[in-house]
């Protein structure tokens, strides 16, 4: 019996190409539906596929919401995430959300097929399959960025995107004083004294990725800020 899969991606050209690729390979995969993220949840609920292959190229907050809704729509489906993000923090955070595979889009379609096959061989497997560029994995150290809490890292991503304290507070639904406290903790933990130093170190250690920062443009929220945060 073929593996029944749903493919979610907002880029139609890529999605259709991948559907065509998965459908034509020797692998026993039947793509029973595909859609953009917005329309996906009803489709998943309706088809309850074995595997949901989903693009996750959004910030963690939105990623969590997408994954929660997928789980809600079909609790037993295995979830394969396709992403352009290649930083350790993102892998860790998504892994905690119970995904079954994390596939960077620099992987080949053959690797994607192999991952789906591996997941199906272990229906109750508890491991997460990760396929990432070797260089990214090799550069991921145990530097001080690893000591940041999830909340602090989230603040740091906003800082790297050029947000002011006020903008960060608004987007994260926090008081501006709380954002300042998080920033002070970040500076102390990683041994820096400015926003730009913190951003540089986070990028250097690959704790956050360029794709995460530039995603702000796609969200339509980019904005400039000076070194003092205003």
């Amino acid at each position, binding site marked *: 019996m073929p593996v029944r899969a749903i493919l979610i991606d907002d*880029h139609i*050209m*890529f999605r*259709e*190409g*991948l559907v*065509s*690729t998965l459908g*034509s390979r020797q692998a026993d995969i039947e793509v029973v539906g595909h859609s953009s993220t917005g329309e996906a949840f009803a489709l998943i609920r309706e088809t309850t596929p074995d595997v949901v292959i989903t693009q996750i190229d959004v910030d963690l907050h939105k990623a969590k919401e997408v994954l929660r809704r997928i789980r809600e729509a079909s609790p037993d489906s295995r979830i394969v995430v*396709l992403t*352009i993000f290649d930083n350790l923090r993102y892998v860790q955070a998504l892994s905690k959300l119970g995904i079954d595979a994390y*596939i*960077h*889009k*620099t*992987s*080949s*379609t053959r690797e*994607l097929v192999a991952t789906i096959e591996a997941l199906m061989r272990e229906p109750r497997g508890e491991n997460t399959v990760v396929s990432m560029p070797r260089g990214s994995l090799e550069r991921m150290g145990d530097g001080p960025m690893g000591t940041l809490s999830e909340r602090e890292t989230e603040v740091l991503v906003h800082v790297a995107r050029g947000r002011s304290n006020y903008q960060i507070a608004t987007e994260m639904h926090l008081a501006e004083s709380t954002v300042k406290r998080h920033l002070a903790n970040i500076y102390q933990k990683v041994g820096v004294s400015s926003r730009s130093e913190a951003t540089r170190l986070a990028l250097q250690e690959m704790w956050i990725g360029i794709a995460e920062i530039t995603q702000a443009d796609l969200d339509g929220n980019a904005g400039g800020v000076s070194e003092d945060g205003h």
Partner: protein
Amino acid sequence: MRVLIVLTPLMCREAIAHSLSQHRPYLEVRIAAPEATEEELRSFAPHLLVHTDTDGLDRAAL
């Protein structure tokens, strides 16, 4: 007609090349990494190049 696809990342390159081959089987479609573009332009001599406009390809190579 020869088509060279040098989009990134690899999964997008493969998916689009596959789709193109399926819908237009008479096309000769080849994929390559962006860094191999100039070499492929010389050896494959494509009629059409599909690349990302921000990949820094030297126009003089075309």
